[in-house]
């Protein structure tokens, strides 16, 4: 149902007691800068903007390799909240190597399995924002591929 790497992360979180869940989320949040684009990396699509749903600018960068597998990078402004940073790391790692269509078809119910019910609350809806942005860039990519194939 989920890409294997993401599934491993979900299963890991489901075994963690609450304190360790929080610690692991913080560790993921702190590793978010490693998901930023590196010098000279080329992308098929880039989408950098600031939406109302998020407190600061978020950039999503998509590269699809010759086998049709997606590789994601993300950049986050300084005001982005810790949980959103954590989800950025988790999704960049967990979705690496999945196809854009697999990402687009991904149900969002895994978010609460990672974050836990206690941390999902009204003002944490931005937790879902990263997934929405990643799906958005995959949709644009697929739409363009289909348009090119039809031309």
């Amino acid at each position, binding site marked *: 149902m989920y890409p294997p790497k993401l599934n491993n992360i979900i299963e890991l979180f489901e075994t963690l007691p609450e304190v360790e869940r*929080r610690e692991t989320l913080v560790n993921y949040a702190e590793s978010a800068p490693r998901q930023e684009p590196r010098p000279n990396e080329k992308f098929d699509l880039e989408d950098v903007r600031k939406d109302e749903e998020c407190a600061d600018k978020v950039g999503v960068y998509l590269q699809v390799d010759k086998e049709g597998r997606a590789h994601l990078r993300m950049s986050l402004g300084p005001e982005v909240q810790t949980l959103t940073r954590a989800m950025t790391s988790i999704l960049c790692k967990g979705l690496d190597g999945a196809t854009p269509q697999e990402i687009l078809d991904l149900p969002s119910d895994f978010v609460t399995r990672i974050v836990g019910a206690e941390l999902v609350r009204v003002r944490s809806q931005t937790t879902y924002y990263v997934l929405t942005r990643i799906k958005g860039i995959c949709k644009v990519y697929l739409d363009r591929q289909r348009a090119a194939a039809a031309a």
Partner: protein
Amino acid sequence: MNTYPTEYAHPEALVETDWLEQHLSDKSIRIVESNEDILLYDTGHIPGAVHIDWRSDLQDAVIRDYIAPDKFAELCRRNGIGPDTTCIFYGDKANWWACYALWAFRLFGHKNVKVLNGGRDKWKAENRPMTREVAKYPASDYPVPNERRDKEIRAFADEALAQSKAKKPLIDVRSPGEFKGEITHMAEYPQEGVLRGGHIPGAKSVPWKTATKDDNTFKSAPELAKIYFEDAGVRPDVDTVVYCRIGERSSHTWFVLTYLLGLDNVRNYDGSWTEWGNKVGAPIEKSS
């Protein structure tokens, strides 16, 4: 010639970062962090600080209301807070949630409360010590408060309506766009389920941020007095109600009016716009 105060009415309600760094081991204080970012404390906090969450610690799990007095006593006991402990609140977002927690502590009559001027951002910007070590304190014997002071510092919807009808000071501390009814939530924030936009009839718009400087510290007493007394029509001899969207930004303004300007008749309408904007029959005013 105005008679604005030249000093804060209760300067003891603020502590500066320098002072706090020198008092980290002071056993008579308890540093309390309260944030919007619910994992921020976990990423590092002021040494010795405990974490109090605005929702899971201060609000009832089922009813939209604050915890009962016995739960408040339990919260204090497990954080080693005694009835005489001086609680120093700080947090993100220019101390919104710190002021909210402080206001909630006052609801239960806890007397010794202070705010760290400038909050978490200023402490961090000054490269002061932070730790991930979660502080543990021996349980206190905090007595169960006799009551919650809802009547004194909290307003309910019918009281906000009465305030509006009586044309008494009603301060809307949300952003100008929310006040005008152009948007129903803060920019950059998710919609929190409000059906109608606008403000309570007669309310004056004084965004919370008006009270702070760029470094999140509070403006001087004369500046605050001009904003609230001269421009917004707040008067010491007439009671005032403040509101925002869920009561956190208005807690910040409540703190300013109560502790920095010395008013003893300010109530926070914590139901705020998420109640008023959905309430059947509640009158709403829009403005350009």
